[in-house]
């Protein structure tokens, strides 16, 4: 019987190796599934990565999040509030229709009409006073105030076909376009016949929770992508994903768990990893209101974190390199500021706080806490790589210098709800800068929380420093890149030396795949089939 099987297998072998078509097919195991095929529904990593296969933008971020030409061949700021995009000629959508400036206007008009978006793309097209097409290959955008990030923001928007969606006569009007027709609903894009873009792939089949199948777009403007067919399979469980790779069910997986790296390599598979734009940080409650009772803080009546010496002590008590080496297995990078160099606004060789528990104890004593105090450290336990373990290690380190730290770790949804209600005087979380530059990180985490002005939206430590605010706000309205970068670098230096926020480390994103493939890690953590290459073939 055994022999029979062997003979059978031997008979199959030549078949398996002689079918070149199968080599053109790639199967990818996704850690999280896109929530929709609509390119403008949900501003979320998995969605944006999937979008880039099917719908191109005017511009696109490269592996380092630098903005590169895509459908626009070039662009420039005519003045502080006017942007001109020159479009690439001879580009066709997957249904054969020619791409023109009309499609850009239609897309900008369609973005705000998306219903029930959990995280909208409207930010990217807000404050446009006019969008016009002097000729079919040119788009001119005017903004109400100087917006240096117009190209960065437009990199998140996939361009739709105006004609395919019945919007040939569209005219841009701030606050509601004319001639938009009936814009497509998000669910319409699940249908391969409706998901029409200019990207290298087109949608072949979408079965929610099971698979997303892409095929080459034959009318793509550039070189045809290497893989004729790409199948994405959502596999949210780490163990299942690794097992699927090792068993050959998929060729390539996202986010293999650190502790399995050795096993994956020993089984003859490969791992690529690269620095991400995600910082893991600690926010300390710095609410200025004297009546505010810092929740979870015991052993003192005051809010200890209003004292810079205490914040500095917290920072000095944390051994970042030990966390990187022991908890992250070396797959992370200790951080001194909120964005890694060479991203825009980050400073080369920014100093990383030295681990110095003795100095921390001294600072605490000087600040009037010779016996320390007690605090609760809030943390999610399923959002970032090893989040709960990092929180426990931080608790260990802080307890050793006298700040007795309890860890309250919980599932991400509960954590963020409680965090937003200011229930933690100290919490650990992460931030990935979508735009790939410092104004995003600084404005979100450090600038004084003022929801009505769109400032400091995630600054739940409520750190507030007038000078930092001024610098960041000024930078956000400075179109000149060099000047903007200088302002951001200065703001970052100032906030870090004031210990307004405690950076820990940058996550490193891993991918694992079978031998013979290669992937260049991306800062934005996207998995792009177009950039998975075959080596030696």
């Amino acid at each position, binding site marked *: 019987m055994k022999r029979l099987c062997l003979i059978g297998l031997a008979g199959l072998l030549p078949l398996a190796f002689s079918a070149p078509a199968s080599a053109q097919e790639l199967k990818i195991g996704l850690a999280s599934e896109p929530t929709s095929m609509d390119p403008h529904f949900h501003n979320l990593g998995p969605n944006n990565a999937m979008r880039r296969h099917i719908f191109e933008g005017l511009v696109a971020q490269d592996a380092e999040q630098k903005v590169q030409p895509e459908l626009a061949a070039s662009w420039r700021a005519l003045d502080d509030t006017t942007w001109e995009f020159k479009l690439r000629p001879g580009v066709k959508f997957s249904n054969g229709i020619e791409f023109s400036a009309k499609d850009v206007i239609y897309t900008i008009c369609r973005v705000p009409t998306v219903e029930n978006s959990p995280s909208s793309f409207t930010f990217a097209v807000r404050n446009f006073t006019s969008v016009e097409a002097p000729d079919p290959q040119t788009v001119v955008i005017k903004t109400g105030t100087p917006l240096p990030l117009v190209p960065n923001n437009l990199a998140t928007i996939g361009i739709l076909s105006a004609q395919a969606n019945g919007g040939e006569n569209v005219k841009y009007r701030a606050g509601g376009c004319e001639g938009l027709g009936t814009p497509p609903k998000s669910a319409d894009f699940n249908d391969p016949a409706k998901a029409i873009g200019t990207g290298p792939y087109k949608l072949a089949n979408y079965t929610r929770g099971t698979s997303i199948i892409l095929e080459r777009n034959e009318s793509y403007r550039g070189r045809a992508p290497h893989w004729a067919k790409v199948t994405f399979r959502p596999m949210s469980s780490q163990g299942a994903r690794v097992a699927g790779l090792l068993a050959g069910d998929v060729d390539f997986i996202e986010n293999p768990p650190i502790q399995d790296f050795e096993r994956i390599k020993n089984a003859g598979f490969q791992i690529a990893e690269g620095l991400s734009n995600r910082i893991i940080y600690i926010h300390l409650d710095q609410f200025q209101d004297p009546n505010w009772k810092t929740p979870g803080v015991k052993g003192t009546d005051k809010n200890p974190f209003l004292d810079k010496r205490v914040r500095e002590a917290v920072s000095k008590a944390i051994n970042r390199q030990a966390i990187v080496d022991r908890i992250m297995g070396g797959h992370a990078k200790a951080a001194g500021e909120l964005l890694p160099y060479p991203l825009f606004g980050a400073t080369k060789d920014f100093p990383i706080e030295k681990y110095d528990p003795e100095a921390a104890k001294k600072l605490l004593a000087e600040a009037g806490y010779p016996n320390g105090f007690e605090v609760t450290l809030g943390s999610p336990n399923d959002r970032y790589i090893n989040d709960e373990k990092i929180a*426990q290690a931080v608790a260990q380190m802080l307890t050793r210098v006298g700040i007795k730290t309890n860890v309250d770790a919980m599932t991400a949804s509960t954590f963020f709800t409680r965090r937003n209600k200011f229930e933690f005087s100290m919490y650990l979380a992460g931030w990935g800068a979508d735009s790939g530059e410092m104004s995003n990180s600084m404005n979100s985490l450090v600038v004084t929380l003022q929801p009505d002005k769109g400032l400091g939206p995630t600054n739940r430590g409520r750190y507030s420093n007038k000078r930092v605010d001024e610098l960041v706000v000024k930078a956000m309205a400075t179109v000149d890149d060099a000047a903007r970068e200088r302002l951001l670098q200065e703001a970052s230096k100032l906030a870090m030396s004031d210990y307004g926020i405690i950076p820990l480390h940058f996550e490193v994103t891993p991918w694992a795949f079978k031998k013979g493939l290669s992937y260049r890690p991306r800062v934005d953590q996207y998995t792009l089939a177009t950039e998975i290459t075959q080596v030696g073939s």
Partner: protein
Amino acid sequence: MADYVRADEVAIAPEIPEPLPATVSSDRGESLLRRHIDEFLKSPGAVAGLTVLIALALIAVFAPAIAPQNPYDLSKLDIMDNVLKPGERLGSGITAFLGTDDQGRDMLSAIIYGLRISLAVGAISVVIACAIGASVGVLAAYAGGRVESVVMRIVDLQLSFPAILVALVLLAVFGRGVDKVVIALVIVQWAYYARTVRGSALVEKRREYIEAARCLALPKSRVVFRHLLPNCLPPLIVVATVQVAHAIALESTLSFLGVGVPVTEPSLGMLIAHGYNYLLSGKYWISTFPGVALVIAIVAINLVGDRLRDVLNPRLAR
């Protein structure tokens, strides 16, 4: 005067001695207990179980003296010691015979302290649940009628929900903490005792000694708690013993699922959960050893519980 009637009872009713409860009123009262003990000791498995259980209890009680490290004192842990193999040395010079976990805790110490939490949570929750459940059950049986119906329907309702589900919901509301786990376990367990006690109380309440006690116009509470309840004890003891094992397993499950005890004070279930991610990576010791400890504790308790059932159940007596 038999040994089960206490002196103060005699002082309260000196002229008319109370009727002696049936099962213990035998003139061989002394030897009945003796006989149970002899019977129990006949099973080597049960004796082994009891020995292990006593040993575990002693280890748990004297944990601070026995454990090489206090795993709950964060200042004693060092992240540089994490995931050491069994037998390697910690930075502080302690040898980690069972290795260390991802936070640098000595596994042996963590298991000893974890056992302490698990046994304590099991025992305390069972005692409280047993007290509440037995009182409710015996009162319902004695009161009869509408009271009994209402109480027993509540019990039915409670028992119709899976214990783990109720406990999960409760802990999601309460938050983390050993005390909260105990409360949750009491809430999911009391109904078992109520039902058990009510069953045997229904039988006992028709016995002559209860009738006699009523005839003497003894207060109701006295009849219920001094006469009726003590005679419902044997099945209760059996259920309580087995429930200790259930409670421990339930606590471990809850901790494994991430509710329950705080992360910095892991119980056995949480230790297993921590090590679970490392199992497939060849770092077996983080999950395996606490698992073994948990199994040993539960098997020992079950062996004792099974034997107690055999000994105390008159239907099984030869």
